[in-house]
């Protein structure tokens, strides 16, 4: 394999996915390089999982081209899958096996020798902090433990490319941080990772580069910092006003704040003001004789970018 293509692990052009009449992925262009931690951000039903399943060489491509490790998943499916680790959105753990057997037997599907499977299983149990539950049946694990086991299982074949579909959904904060730490360690070991998430802090913390997708299309692309500078201001001022009968709605308040900061946004319970200097904007609010219950100046986050790009729809 040539050095240039060797570095490009995922390459997609005009990638589409149709389910019958419905087009879930509508022409996506991607390039993920070795060593990167790449993120997909998008609201429910945006097409993140559909794209991940195509990259995992499980779901057939409906249109466009896709190359994984420079290979076509249609013709090299088993070879590609042998070099991938996959953590699906919904756990597909083997409920009839114990924790330890789940890892060991999964290694066998990759045709690894039994002794090797045993060795790696011990290692991964340690990695996922599940050693003391090695003999438990999967059903008796908590949701977070199952998630950790799924991730440990995806590493049994020492993948070059790890695909994680919402790896931390449903985890408590400790488990989430433990997982971030593990993913970071893997990155340092040179494992390329692609993850989808709804958590902005996660995307901000982990991803070198990410795309925001909405309704099957890429609507923005860049590093978390780039996206924030491009689609938001440096700071955000959050204002809460007393909700009394007859008092102005947030939309009316936002109108009254016209010209403060670079943009105003009315939410159900708050008004957001996007400004490079939040304190200065707050001074302006007071000058206009408006008395919010509370005012908070914070740094802009990816969440602001995300909400602006995908509209204020329901996102979890």
């Amino acid at each position: 394999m040539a050095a240039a293509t060797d570095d490009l692990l995922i390459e997609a052009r005009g990638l589409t996915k149709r389910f019958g009449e419905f087009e879930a992925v509508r022409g996506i262009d991607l390039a993920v390089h070795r060593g990167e931690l790449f993120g997909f951000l998008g609201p429910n039903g945006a097409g993140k999982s559909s794209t991940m399943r195509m990259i995992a060489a499980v779901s057939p491509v409906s249109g466009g081209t896709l190359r994984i490790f420079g290979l076509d998943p249609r013709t090299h499916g088993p070879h590609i899958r042998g070099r991938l680790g996959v953590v699906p959105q919904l756990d597909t753990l083997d409920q009839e096996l114990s924790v330890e057997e789940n890892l060991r037997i999964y290694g066998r599907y990759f045709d690894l020798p039994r002794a090797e499977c045993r060795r790696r299983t011990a290692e991964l149990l340690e990695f996922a902090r599940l050693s003391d539950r090695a003999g438990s049946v999967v059903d008796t694990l908590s949701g977070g433990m199952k998630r950790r086991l799924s991730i440990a299982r995806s590493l049994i074949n020492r993948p070059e490319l790890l695909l994680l579909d919402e790896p931390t959904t449903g985890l408590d904060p400790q488990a989430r941080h433990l997982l971030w730490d593990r993913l970071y360690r893997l990155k340092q070991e040179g494992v390329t990772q692609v993850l989808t998430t709804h958590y902005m802090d996660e995307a901000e913390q982990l991803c070198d580069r990410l795309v925001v997708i909405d309704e099957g299309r890429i609507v923005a692309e860049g590093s978390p910092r780039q996206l924030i500078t491009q689609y938001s201001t440096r700071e955000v001022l959050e204002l809460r006003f007393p909700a009394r009968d007859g008092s102005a709605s947030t939309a009316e308040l936002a109108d009254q704040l016209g010209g403060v900061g670079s943009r105003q946004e009315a939410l159900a319970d708050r008004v957001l003001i996007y400004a490079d200097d939040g304190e200065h904007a707050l001074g302006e609010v007071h000058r206009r004789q408006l008395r919010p219950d509370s005012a908070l100046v914070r740094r802009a986050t990816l969440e602001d970018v995300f909400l602006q790009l995908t509209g204020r729809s329901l996102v979890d």
Partner: protein
Amino acid sequence: MVERHLVAYRRMWLIIVSGFFEPLFYLLSMRLGVGRLVGDVTVGGRPVTYVEFVAPALMATSAMNGAIYDSTGNVMVRLRQMHLYDGVLATPMTPADVAVGDIGWALLRGQLYAASFLVVMTAMGLVHSWSALLTLPASAAVGLVFAALGFTATSYMRGWPDMDWVTVATMPMLMFSATFFPVEAYGRWRWAVNLSPLYHGVAMIRSLAAGVWAWSMLIHVAVLVVLAVVAVVVAARRIDRLLRA
């Protein structure tokens, strides 16, 4: 795949053992009851007692049952409830590997029943010829056919209520496969018997157990092999359609 099931089923040996007793009880009741009331029957021109007549058919039936239990109910759980195959297909394993693995496992289970059955038959003095050893490959063919058919049928099922169709299909099969009476007894419905895959297995195993050879056996083998190959191919296609959307 098979290795996975071996590990999983170490905990469930009781279920497996229980499946074996069903045809065995049939056989015992035949020997003690019905067998005394019914006279001898001929197999390939040779007279045999009724128990000797029925036992090979029950051996074929137990191979069928073992294979069907596993390829329907258990496959259903793995497919719809555990999402086991989704996990497996994320590895280098292909849908064909999954189909072959699970059909192979169901076949093994049928074979386990059939083999134990053969041992019991021998112990009861119902086996007279060394050709009876060939009943094992014959029952394997029966198991293969039903494992693959069961697997394919399961892939079309939407939920547990559909499972009843398995009984709907196997009960008449048991009745119309010359299991309990000679094929001549079906009169003008005799052609219908030929449509039952189980019949071809029963006929094979019966001849082999009695040590009788006939050209018609080649036809039975051919029918079983062709059915098995077609069913395995269809089963792999179904897995592909279902899980790789």
